[in-house]
C-alpha cells in the first residue's frame, strides 16, 4: 500500500515484461494524471476479457484514471461483469462473496484506518446493479446507515448481464429480457433517494459519455469518503449484449438515456461541501439569479 509495491526488486528490471516496465516507469502512480492525458501514459488497467464496445468497461477505465491516489486505493467487487475488468488493474482488488462487498469494504476501511492512521487509504466498491441493489442490498444500506467511510459505485446496466439476462431491481418497468419474457412488473428501485435517506454525504448519477464529468464525480466521492462519510455513485453502463445495442451505437444510446431518465444529478451534504471547500477549494456551481444577468438589449 505505497509506491514501493509498484517498483522493481533490485536486479529484476530486465526480466520483467514490457507492460510491467511501462507501468513502473510511465504509469499513473505517484503523479496526477487526468482524462485529457489519456493515450499518452500507461494506464493502471490492462487488457481484460469484457465484451467489445462495453460501456461498463469505459466507465471502469475512466474511474481508475480518476482515483486521486491510485497507489493508496483498494477496489472491492463482487460477482458480475465489472470484476472481470476491475481485477485486471494494477490496483489491489478484493473479491467479496456475492453480496457482501460493502461488509468486506467496511472492515477493510476500518482496518486501514487503524493501521495507517491519518494517511489516506481509499476503499472503493464497484459492483453491478444486482450486487448492490438486490443481493447485497442489506449490507449496502447498513454500511450507509453506519456512515462507513468508503465509496460505493453501482455499475447499473439494468440487467443480470453475466448470467443471460434476468431482470434486476434496477431494470425498468416493462423491460422484456431473454430470461424475463413477460416484462418486468415493478418500477426501477430508487437507490438515489435511499442513499440520501440513509445519510450518504455525496450522491451522484453519471453516464460515461462525458469523461470529464465522470472524473470529477469520482474524485469528489473518493475525497469526501476519506473523512466525511459514505458516498454513492450510480453510473449508467449499458449492456450492449442483453439490450441488443450495436457496439458503434453504445454512446448514442448513453446520450439518449442521459436525456431521457439518467440526467446528471449531484447531492453534496453541507458537511461535505464545507470539507471540500476548506481542503480543495471547491466552489459550488449555482445558476445566477435573474437580476444578476445583464440585459443584452
Amino acid at each position, binding site marked *: 500500500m505505497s509506491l514501493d509495491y509498484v517498483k522493481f526488486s533490485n536486479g529484476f528490471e530486465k526480466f520483467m515484461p514490457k507492460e510491467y516496465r511501462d507501468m513502473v516507469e510511465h504509469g499513473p502512480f505517484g503523479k496526477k494524471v487526468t482524462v485529457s492525458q*489519456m*493515450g499518452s501514459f*500507461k494506464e493502471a488497467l490492462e*487488457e481484460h476479457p469484457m465484451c*467489445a464496445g462495453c460501456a461498463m*468497461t469505459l466507465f471502469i477505465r475512466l474511474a481508475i484514471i480518476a482515483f486521486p491516489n491510485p497507489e493508496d486505493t483498494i477496489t472491492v467487487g463482487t460477482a458480475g461483469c465489472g470484476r472481470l475488468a476491475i481485477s485486471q488493474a494494477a490496483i489491489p482488488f478484493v473479491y467479496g462473496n456475492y453480496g457482501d462487498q460493502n461488509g468486506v469494504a467496511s472492515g477493510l476501511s476500518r482496518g486501514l484506518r487503524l493501521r495507517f492512521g491519518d494517511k489516506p487509504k481509499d476503499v472503493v466498491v464497484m459492483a453491478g446493479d444486482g450486487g448492490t441493489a438486490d443481493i447485497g442490498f442489506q449490507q449496502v444500506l447498513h454500511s450507509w446507515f453506519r456512515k462507513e467511510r468508503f465509496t460505493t459505485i453501482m455499475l447499473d446496466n439494468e440487467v443480470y448481464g453475466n448470467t443471460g439476462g434476468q431482470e434486476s431491481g434496477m431494470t425498468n418497468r416493462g423491460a422484456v429480457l431473454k430470461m424475463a419474457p413477460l416484462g418486468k412488473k415493478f418500477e426501477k428501485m430508487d437507490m438515489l433517494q435511499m442513499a440520501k435517506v440513509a445519510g450518504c454525504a455525496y450522491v451522484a448519477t453519471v453516464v460515461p459519455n462525458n*469523461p470529464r464529468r465522470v472524473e470529477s464525480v469520482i474524485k469528489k466521492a473518493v475525497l469526501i469518503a476519506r473523512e466525511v462519510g459514505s458516498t454513492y455513485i450510480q453510473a449508467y453502463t449499458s449492456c450492449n449484449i442483453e439490450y441488443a445495442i450495436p*457496439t*458503434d451505437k*453504445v454512446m448514442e444510446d448513453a446520450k439518449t438515456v442521459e436525456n431521457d431518465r439518467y440526467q446528471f444529478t449531484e447531492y453534496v451534504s453541507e458537511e461535505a461541501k464545507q470539507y471540500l471547500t476548506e481542503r480543495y477549494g471547491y466552489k459550488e456551481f449555482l445558476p445566477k439569479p435573474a437580476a444578476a444577468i445583464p440585459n443584452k438589449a
Partner: protein
Amino acid sequence: MYLVANVNVEICASKSCKLCTQYCPEANTIQYSEEMGKEQGFKYGSAYIAVDRCKGCALCVWVCDSLAKNNAIKMTMIDQLPKAALTDNITYGDKSTTAVLASPMVG
C-alpha cells in the same frame, strides 16, 4: 480476418481533438503521438491504434463521425493494413508516445 480501427493521420493531425482516446473501452488502445503528425508536416500530433488490443467495436468511429465530426477513423480488415502499431513497439515518453510501425500480419 477481422476489423480493426484505422486513423487517417492527415485528418487527425490537422484537428487533434483527442476525443477518441477518451472514449475507447480498452486501455492503451487508442494512443496519441506528437511525432506522428509532425513528421508529416502537420501542426499537431495524431492518434493511432495499437491493433493487437483493438476489439473492433467501432465506438471510436461513432465518436469521430458524430461527436467530433472529423470522419478520420474507419474500420479496416487487419490484413489490408500495410503498417500498424503493436503494443510491443510503443514507447512511452513524458507527454506523448511513439510507435514504430510494422506489418500486423505475422508469418
